[in-house]
């Protein structure tokens, strides 16, 4: 009887209402509109027809499967490198060396400098005629003449990854450093007293304890890297011969450069789908970690 007579308290819902409305306007509506557009042949003119799944069929008939594969390949290499360098960086910055605060500050510029500026600087460094890398390699005798890093498929692909890693590593380092600092020094001291080497302590104490942070950061980094547009666009615009065209670049080229909004929307829907899977994994992992820590 009590539950029937219980009054619903609307006040919390009222407080949530503005945020809900804003979310619906800036997230849900564009998403629904993109899905709707993906079933149309919308182009430059204001008129369009519904074409069913034609855009999706056309997308998979063309080069899109190779674009998907390239996106995952690019993401896998980039995220792996960021995680490896991030762990090494965090260990070094966690070491009790004099002036470590200064080192912690010095690692931040790639992340703090506006991305476009950082990428333009890398673009100049990759230049064969005037760039630092080619010039240095020639002086050291590694190259016999100028080499344009962005002009060839493999070197352009790797160059975009190097720049992405340069920008993304500080964030990973700082995140993992925070995780390492939360480990009680007692554990290391006890192991040290028992004669455990540095490597052993790292393998058996540090790594297991920062693993949840590593997993979380890997997933977050994968989402950001998958979505990375500005680095590739500024350096290569997806070239040469599509060697650096990832899903996000392909979507931009189709929808914005060529004004094929219907086909572009179908590509955007695919990106949303992949990112939703990543996000689902991320939330699953976060809730597992939360359960473990409360257990």
């Amino acid at each position, binding site marked *: 009887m009590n539950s029937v007579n219980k009054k619903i308290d609307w006040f919390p819902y009222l407080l949530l209402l503005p945020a809900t409305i804003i979310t619906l306007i800036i997230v849900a509506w564009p998403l629904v509109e993109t899905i709707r557009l993906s079933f149309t042949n919308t*182009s*430059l*003119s*204001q008129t369009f027809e519904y074409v069913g799944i034609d855009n999706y069929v056309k997308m998979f008939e063309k080069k899109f499967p190779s674009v998907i594969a390239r996106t995952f390949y690019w993401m896998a290499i980039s995220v792996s490198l960021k995680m490896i360098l991030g762990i090494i960086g965090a260990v070094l910055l966690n070491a009790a060396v004099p002036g470590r605060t200064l080192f912690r500050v010095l690692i931040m510029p790639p992340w703090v400098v506006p991305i476009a500026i950082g990428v333009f600087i890398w673009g100049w460094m*990759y*230049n*064969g*005629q*005037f760039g630092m890398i080619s010039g240095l390699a020639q002086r050291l005798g590694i190259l016999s*003449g*100028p*080499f*344009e*890093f*962005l*002009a*060839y*498929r493999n070197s352009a692909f790797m160059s975009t990854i190097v720049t992405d890693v340069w920008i993304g590593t500080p964030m990973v380092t700082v995140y993992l450093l925070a995780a390492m600092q939360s480990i009680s020094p007692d554990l290391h001291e006890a192991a040290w007293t028992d004669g455990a080497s540095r490597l052993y302590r790292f393998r058996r104490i540090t790594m297991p304890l920062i693993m949840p942070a590593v997993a979380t950061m890997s997933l977050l980094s994968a989402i950001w890297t998958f979505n990375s547009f500005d680095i590739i666009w500024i350096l*290569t*615009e*997806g*070239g*040469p*011969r599509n060697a650096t065209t990832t899903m996000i670049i392909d979507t931009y080229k189709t929808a*914005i*450069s*060529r*004004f094929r*909004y219907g086909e572009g929307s179908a590509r955007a829907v695919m990106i949303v789908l992949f990112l939703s899977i990543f996000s689902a994994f991320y939330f699953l992992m976060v809730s597992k970690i939360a359960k473990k820590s409360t257990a």
Partner: protein
Amino acid sequence: MKNKLRLCVSALALMTTASAFSAEKIHMINCGDDTGKGIQLQNELIKQWEAENEGYTVEVEFVPWGQCQEKSTSLASAGNPPAISYMGSRTLKQLAKNDLIIPVDMTEEEQASYAAPILATITSDGKQWGLPRAFSTKALYYNKDLFKAAGLDPENPPKTWDEMYEAAKAIKEKTDSDGFGLAAASFDNTMHQFMNYVYTNGGEVINDKGEIVFNSENNVEALAFYGKMASVSQDGPIAYDRAKLRPLFSESRIGMFISGPWERSQIKEDINWGVTTIPVGPKGKPGTLLITDSLAVFKNSGVESQALSLAKLLTNSENQMAFELAEGYTPLRDLPEVKGLIDTDPTWKAFLDSIPTGGPEPFVTDYVGLQDAINEAVQSVVLEEVDAAEAVETAAETLEDYK
């Protein structure tokens, strides 16, 4: 009561005054920046037009070249078009087909003021869709000192493709510089550079009937030669669009490159350079790609007729000529002043001589698609991944969708 009445009358007077001053805006998108000398002249003309057309103010927005056309087109397709925009004339057919721009209603006299190949760059279905604003032809710049150092005659620049290749090879082998500056980046001017070879070898992309005729022996030859030039050019042409070649030329890192008349004022002063018409291919005659950019008047801005009147003022014979001379563009109209140009500056000759036999930018319904298809063919041959015949055939098949 009297006070209330006074207040109401004052408020009404204020509102009337405010509405009188709230002039209608004419949004004009201009590509590039506002540093050119021609832009100062344009600003003066805009002020003059505003004085003659009370109630209208012109708001000029400068957008970098890379995003300019994309921005205007996106705004128009979203239903919020600029009134006037500077557009590459190659985009006009696509914009017209999608009902985004209005025809510019040229009188017969206005049409007659342009040479036929120039009028062709803005005409589709018998109507003109833009008012030509900038015109460029291309020519071959060469470094006389590097020619001398390579044992070549600096007063006898190459006239054929073979001579150009041999000259570039000599420079590459006998000096520390590369023979030629080749552009092959994923950018519109890579297609433009290649079209110079198409037109100097008797080729075409789309004919008068609107048929794709890209797959021809002439074009295969042109593409194969473009690929061959890579061997005597700077490393990695795919990292270079045309604008990036000028610094190489200014530093004597390359012996030759093809570009427009604006380079004359921008090459470093200590470079001893010459300029000549683009060398001719085995199947062709002297030629060049004729590129015009136009002022397009967009539909549904609400100020179409005013925008058209402003665009016509800016591009009439007298004002356009002054703008071209200030900006260093090739003159659009064959006016008496043009003949005087060569007398005062002989370097104009290379840019003006090839106009009658030049060819327009292909006029298609998806210009970015066209550009991507041709650039893909160029890059595949420059990287030596595909042979010229196959690359031309693939591009021709793709182009069928865009005619």
